[in-house]
């Protein structure tokens, strides 16, 4: 039993999207996400799909990697569309099965919501695939820096976020090792009633917590040894500057949103 966690894994490549300033990239993708969630017809969805596909091509990220990184969330997506299909009761009834019925409104809703979500997921994963956690943390750092003025530790929040990203794969590996070890000692993860299954998780969680604390201990030693004292006085290895590339990215995003709005009026 191996847990595969690939959400938020960086894919190194030389592309315009990779080189884009992380702050601008985040704002652009946020804008695209909001826009995608406002789509309501097929033409808009097609445009959005084309736009996201173009971005993937420019970013030189293989489709397989994108699929792998959103796969864990696909289950959630499938459940969502099933709910829409079965429980939306607008329009005509197309088919019935016992107490359940599928309506035309349900089909539209299922298709629309699923497509929106899928596009949003892919766009979101594009950020993670093309931005290193350090760049992300730096970007958040800058974006949250106004918060520091009102006493909220913007930089520290960004740092915590970045460390979290760093330790997700490590803890995932350990979880699967713990599950393997305990299932070999008769731990029942895939048998028995729900109570037994839930109970079998307790020792896993305890062992994982213990290992988390051990990592925390080591990590704090490492942070101290490397003179990490919070954001003040820190410099940044990676340059963050706004140039022509960032302006183009902003313009392209704006054009996309305008076009999407236009399609909304037309259809």
């Amino acid at each position, binding site marked *: *039993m*191996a847990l595969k966690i690939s959400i938020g*894994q*960086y894919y*190194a490549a030389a592309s315009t999207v990779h080189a884009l300033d992380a702050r601008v990239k985040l704002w652009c993708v946020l804008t695209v996400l909001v826009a995608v969630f406002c789509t309501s017809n097929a033409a808009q969805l097609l445009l959005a799909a084309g736009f996201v596909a173009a971005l993937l091509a420019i970013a030189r990220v293989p489709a397989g990697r994108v699929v792998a990184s959103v796969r864990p969330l696909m289950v959630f997506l499938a459940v969502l569309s099933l709910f829409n299909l079965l429980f939306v009761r607008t329009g005509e009834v197309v088919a019935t099965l016992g107490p359940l019925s599928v309506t035309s409104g349900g089909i539209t809703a299922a298709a629309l919501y699923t497509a929106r979500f899928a596009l949003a997921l892919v766009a979101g994963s594009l950020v993670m695939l093309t931005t*290193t*956690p*350090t760049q992300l943390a730096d970007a958040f750092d800058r974006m949250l820096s106004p918060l520091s003025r009102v006493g909220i530790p913007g930089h520290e929040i960004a740092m915590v976020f*970045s*460390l979290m*990203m*760093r330790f997700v*794969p*490590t803890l995932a590996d*350990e979880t699967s*090792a*713990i599950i*393997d*070890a*305990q*299932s*070999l*000692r*008769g*731990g*029942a993860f895939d048998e028995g009633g729900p109570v037994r299954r839930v109970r079998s998780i307790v*020792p896993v969680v*305890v*062992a994982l917590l*213990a*290992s988390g604390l*051990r*990592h925390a*201990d*080591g*990590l704090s*030693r*490492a*942070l*101290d*040894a*490397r*003179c*990490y*004292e919070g954001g003040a*006085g*820190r*410099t*940044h*290895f*990676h*340059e963050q500057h706004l140039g022509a590339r960032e302006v183009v990215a902003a313009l392209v995003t704006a054009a996309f949103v305008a076009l999407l709005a236009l399609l909304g009026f037309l259809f």
Partner: protein
Amino acid sequence: MTSAAVPIRLSHVSLVYEGGVVALDDVSLEVARGERICVLGANGSGKSTLASVVCGLLAPDAGEVELAGEHVCSDGRPDLEAYRRARRNLGLVFQNPDDQIVTSVVEDDVAFGPENLGLPREEIASRVTRELHRVALDDYAHADPSRLSGGQKQRVAIAGALAMEPDVLVLDEPGSLLDVRGRAAILRVMGRLAKAGTTLVHVTHFMEEAVEADRVIVLDRGRIALEGTPEEVFARGAELADLGLEVPFAARLSQRLGLPWTCSEKDVVDAIAGVPFGDRTLLGHRPDVPKASCPQMGHLISVEHASFSYSGRAQALDDVSLEVAPGVSTAIIGQTGSGKSTLLRLFCGLEVPDSGRIVVAGNDTSTKRGRKAVRRVVGYVMQHPERQLFAETVEKDVAFGPRNLRLSADEVSRRVNRALELVGLAGKREASPFQLSGGQRRLCALAGILAMEPEVLILDEPTAGLDPRGRAMLRRVLVRLRERGITLVQVTHSMEDAARCDRVVALDQSHLVAVGTPREVFSPENEERLTKGGLGIPRSLRVARELERRGWPALGDPLTTDELVAAIGETAGTGAFAGETVGTGTFVSPQEVR
């Protein structure tokens, strides 16, 4: 960089942890600029605490501490501002590489320290390039550290510390979680640093690693037990063994033969080769070796043409076939990435081969029912099994498995008692597993698996990361299990451990390269292939073969130091090594080499 002050000065430092555990007891130590110091000690000797004090992460309860020219602690009162300033000139690399890497890109990680120091960007960039080059990781600048090997990760950590240009680099057991190759790479880096004049404080329990040091300090229960040059300290072999350390092979051998003391294998061979051997040549003589009892009954584990690959990655095992007979102990050797651990996972039914089949005690692992049956027969001790301990007491942790089998309370306690008895932890049943020593924690995890009463025990590097005492404890338990007829299969990096097993299986790059008794596998015909695969042969055998190359008669392939000493004694004739002045040994001290 600070002035010409002594980088580290501790005087009469004591440190007591909560609960009254004395970690350091009146320790005084001075480290000169450019010096390479090695701190040796068993687990619990206080050496890690000393490392923390020396790199400014821990202030003692009593005594004076001067670090990087700052008077950071006087009479147990720390000056926090001075500590902050001092830490900027002190670097630390410690045991677990995973905990030291804070980002997901190698170069960003190396840059982390310099960023914290507030250096300008150009300076950071040039340091990152320079340090990655120094640890020979230039090509990995953009790699994800979690995909690197342990040794590579540790080199990233060293680069990260060096990029801060510390006055002193403290290395706290940097190699104890690495394989042989990773450890050798770390030592090479340290050698280069020492040559470049970096002040090094190296904490370890591997005595071999101390040979190159300028000065060796041996700690025992928080006190400095021995101090001096490596040859001064190592010459006191008996005392060192009492302190829970392992005297290097060459030193042990030279002592056993009554030769001048040395830590270099080449010197020992030179010295022995210089001794004339008697007429009683033993050409072709092979000592009688007790043959592994190989019952004629069927195989307990049989692997037939098994191939396996983890999804989307290269082949982990390619057409491997082998058998394990009941009651026989088997060692699996191979480089990291050769497929050894995968083979173990196939044995326990945690993975199923893509093609071919695996039958354990008559159960084919390809079906779910078969895998379930296999799990009742096989006990699997993973790497670092102590990391998976979770219960409040040793007893409860060991009882986890039997309870899951829904045995009666009597049967559970019988099995727990028996398992704890076997590993020698019967007196610790009420203790928390987290209060045990490293070796005891591992034995506790082992007891948890023994309580399942497996017929086959599968162990993945059972001694990795333990100090000599822990290793000895574990080996004793394995011998005991073998006597009770439990079939043992262990992955090991130690050719000496492999030589003690009945059979050896050698893997290289997912292929099976040799199977047989240790003598067959480590035969002269296989030697080159094993060495090329980065494995080598047991040290005693290496010395014997070297002597044979220098014209000695055949020594009968000794696999252990005892066999080697006996064979040499017999060949040379009694008397040649009976403590007489041999006088042929050349004594090369590390100082002269440097």
